[in-house]
C-alpha cells in the first residue's frame, strides 16, 4: 500500500494546478473555509461533550467539592495526594488490572482461534458467524444477573457442578481470585464473539495468493497460520487490543451488578471493586465530587499509558 501512494502523488504534481480565480474572492473564501465548516460539527460536538467535561473534571478535582456544597474550597493537588495514599484506590487498581488480564488475554487468543475456524469452509457459515455474535446482542444487565446467579456462593450452579465432581465449592464473592474469574468470564462471554468477527474480517482480507504461494512451497496449515495469517492480522490485532484495553480498564457494570445486595463496594472487602466502581461510589454515594474527579483523571492517564504500551508491544511482537 505505502509503496503505491507516492506514485499517485507524483502523478498529481505533473498536472497543472487549478489556479484560484482572483475575480471571485467569495469562491476563494469558500475553498479555504468550507472544508473546516464541513468538519466542524464533529469538533463542536466533541468540544461540548468530550473535551469540556474532561477539562472541567480536571478543574473540579482541585476542590473539596461535595454535591450541593455552596462554596467548595480550593485545595490544589490535595485530592491527588490523598489518592496516592488511599489503599482502597490501589486495591481497586489491582482488581481492575487483574480482571483486565483475566478477560482480555484469553479473549483475544480464543477470538483469533474462533476466527480461524470460521474462516474454514463450514456448512451454514453465516449461521455460525451470526451465532458467535449472539452474546454481544444480549442485554449486559440480564447477562450479569444470570452470571451472578451461576456464581452464587451457596446455591449457584457452578458450585453445585464443582461439588458433583468432588471439587470443594469456591466462595465466588469472598475470594479475590474467584470473584475476578467470575467477572472476567462475563466479559469473555460477551466480547469474544465480537472480537472474533473483527479478526475474521481481517483474515478474509488476506490475499489468497500469499497462502497459495506458501502452499506450493510446502507450508502446512500451522506454519501458514503463524507465518502468514498472524503477521498480516497485525493492524487489526492492535486495534482489538487497544479497544479492549480501554474497555477493560473502564469495567463497571459487571462488578456493580455482581454485588448481591446492590451496593457499590465491590464485595465485603472490595475484593472486586474496580477503579470506575470506586469512582462511582465516591461520587454518588459519598457525594465527594472533587475526589471522584481526581480518580477519573488518574484513571484517564493510566488508560492512555497502558493503551500506548500495548500498542508498542503489539507492534514489536507481531511482525
Amino acid at each position, binding site marked *: 500500500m505505502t509503496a503505491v501512494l507516492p506514485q499517485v502523488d507524483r502523478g498529481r504534481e505533473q498536472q497543472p494546478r487549478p489556479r484560484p480565480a482572483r475575480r471571485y474572492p467569495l469562491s476563494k473564501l469558500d475553498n479555504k473555509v468550507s472544508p473546516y465548516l464541513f468538519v466542524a460539527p464533529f469538533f463542536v460536538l466533541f468540544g461540548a461533550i468530550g473535551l469540556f467535561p474532561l477539562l472541567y473534571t480536571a478543574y473540579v478535582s482541585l476542590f473539596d467539592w461535595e*454535591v450541593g456544597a455552596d462554596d467548595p474550597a480550593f485545595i490544589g493537588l490535595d485530592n491527588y495526594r490523598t489518592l496516592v495514599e488511599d489503599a482502597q484506590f490501589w486495591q481497586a487498581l489491582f482488581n481492575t488490572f487483574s480482571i483486565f488480564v483475566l478477560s482480555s488475554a484469553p479473549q483475544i487468543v480464543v477470538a483469533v482461534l474462533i476466527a480461524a475456524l470460521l474462516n474454514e469452509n463450514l456448512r451454514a457459515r453465516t449461521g455460525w458467524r451470526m451465532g458467535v455474535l449472539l452474546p454481544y446482542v444480549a442485554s449486559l444487565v440480564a447477562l450479569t444477573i444470570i452470571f451472578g446467579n451461576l456464581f*452464587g456462593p451457596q446455591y*449457584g450452579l457452578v458450585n453445585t457442578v464443582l461439588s458433583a465432581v468432588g471439587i470443594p465449592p469456591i466462595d465466588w464473592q469472598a475470594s479475590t481470585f474467584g470473584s475476578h474469574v467470575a467477572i472476567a468470564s462475563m466479559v469473555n462471554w460477551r466480547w469474544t464473539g465480537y472480537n472474533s468477527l473483527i479478526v475474521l474480517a481481517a483474515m478474509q482480507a488476506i490475499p489468497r495468493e500469499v497462502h497459495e504461494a506458501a502452499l506450493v512451497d510446502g507450508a502446512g496449515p500451522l506454519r501458514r497460520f503463524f507465518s502468514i495469517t498472524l503477521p498480516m492480522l497485525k493492524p487489526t490485532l492492535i486495534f482489538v487490543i487497544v479497544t479492549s484495553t480501554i474497555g477493560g480498564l473502564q469495567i463497571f457494570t459487571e462488578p456493580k451488578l455482581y454485588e448481591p*445486595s446492590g451496593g457499590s463496594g465491590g464485595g*465485603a472487602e472490595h475484593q472486586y471493586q474496580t477503579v470506575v466502581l470506586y469512582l462511582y461510589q465516591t461520587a*454518588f454515594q*459519598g*457525594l465527594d465530587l472533587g475526589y471522584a474527579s481526581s480518580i477519573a483523571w488518574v484513571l484517564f492517564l493510566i488508560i492512555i499509558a497502558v493503551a500506548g504500551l500495548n500498542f508498542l508491544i503489539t507492534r514489536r511482537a507481531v511482525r
Partner: protein
Amino acid sequence: MRQRWVSVLICAAVSAAATTACGSGGASQSPDGKTELTIATFNEFGYEDLFKEYEAAHPDVKITQRKTGQGQPHHQNLFTKLGAGSGLADIEAVEEGYLSQVMAKASQFNDLKEIGPQIEDGRWLKWKSDAVTTKDGKLIGYGTDIGPLAMCYRKDLFQQAGLPSDPEGVKTLFATWDSYFAAGDQFVAKVPGVAWFDNAAQVFNAMHNQHQVGYYDRDDKLVVESNPDIKADWDAVTKAVSKGQSARLAAFSNEWNTGFKLGKFATKTCPSWMLGVIESQAGPENKGKWAVADAFPNGGGNWGGSYLSVPKQSKNAKKAAELAAWLTAPEQQIKAFKAKGTFPSQVKALDAPALLEQTNPYFNDVKAGALFATQAKKVTAAQYKGPKDGEIQETVFSPALQSVEQGKNADEAWRTAVQGAEKAAK
C-alpha cells in the same frame, strides 16, 4: 381572505386532534390561573385517589406526580438537583435511610413549622417527628409511613428444635438480645443445616438503632470507637456468627430469596413491610410456616418509612406545605394504607378500625395491623443521625459484618470498620 380561511381550517383540525385552545389573542383559554404543584415520590405511596380528592376541594390547584420506581434513583435525583439548585418538585419524599443526608442539608429545605399550616400537637409518633427536627428546632418533613419492627419466625422449625412456637411462648425468646442469641445457640444445635437469622448486618442494624447514641453524638462528632454500645453489639453479633447462627445471605440478594424458599434461617427481623417480602419470596408452598410475634428484643425498633419535605427551591412553598400537611393527616394516611398498605406514622391512625382489623392470611391470619401498631408504640426515642450515618451503615458496617461471615477475623474486621467510618465521615 383566502389565507384566513386556511388558518381557521388548520386551527380547527389541530384543536380537534389535540383539543388545545386555538383562539386569537388572549380571549378565553389562556393559562387557567391554577397553581401547579409537583410531588416526587418513589415506590407506592398510595396517593393517587387523594390527589383527585384534594383537587376537587381546591379548584385552584393542579397536582402533578413524579413517580420513581425505586428509592435509590429517587434520592440520587434529589441530591443531584439539590446540588444543582433547581429542578426539584415542590414536595419531595424522603426515605428514612436517606434522612441523615437530607438533615445535613437542612438549610436547603423549608421549615414546615414556619411556612406550613397550623398542625395539632402530637399528630405523629414522637420519635417519628423528632427524627426530622433539626437541632435548632426546625421541622423539615411531615411523617408519612413507618416500618415498626417485630420478629418473624418459622413455626415448624421452632417445633423441630423443641422451642416454644406459639406467639405467646416465643415472647420469652425474643425478650432481649441475650435471650435471642441464646435461643439461637439452642436452635442451631438441634436443627443442622438451618441458621438462626439471615445475615449479621440485618440484626446488627436493628440493635444499633435502639441506642440513644449511634455513630455520631449530637455535636456531629464520630463516636464509633468511643461508644461502648456499638462494640458490644458487634461482639454479640460476630460471636453468634462464629457459632453458625448466620445464614450468611446478603439482604435482598438472589441467594437471600432462595434462602427464604428453602427455609435456611428460622428468624427474621421484620418491619411491617417485610411480611409482603416474605410472602412473595417464600412462596405459597411455605404458607402458614412463617409466623410473626408482637415482640422484638429490647423493646421496639423501626426500619423504613418516609417523610414529605418542601425544598427551598419550590416557588409555591406555602401551598405545597398545605398539600403535604393534608396528605399526612391521619384521615388521609389511613386511605393510603388501605390503598397500598403503607403503615401510618400518625398516632390517631394507629387506632383506626381499618388498621386494627387488618389480618394477614399468609401468617396464619394474624392481626398484623394491630400487632405492628403495638410495636410502633414500643419505640422509645429517635437516635440522632449524623451527616454520614446512612453511608456508614450501608458501605462500612454492613460489608464489614459480611466479611466476618466470609471468614475474616472479627477483630480485624472491627478495625477495618472503624477506619472506614472515619474515612466516610471525613
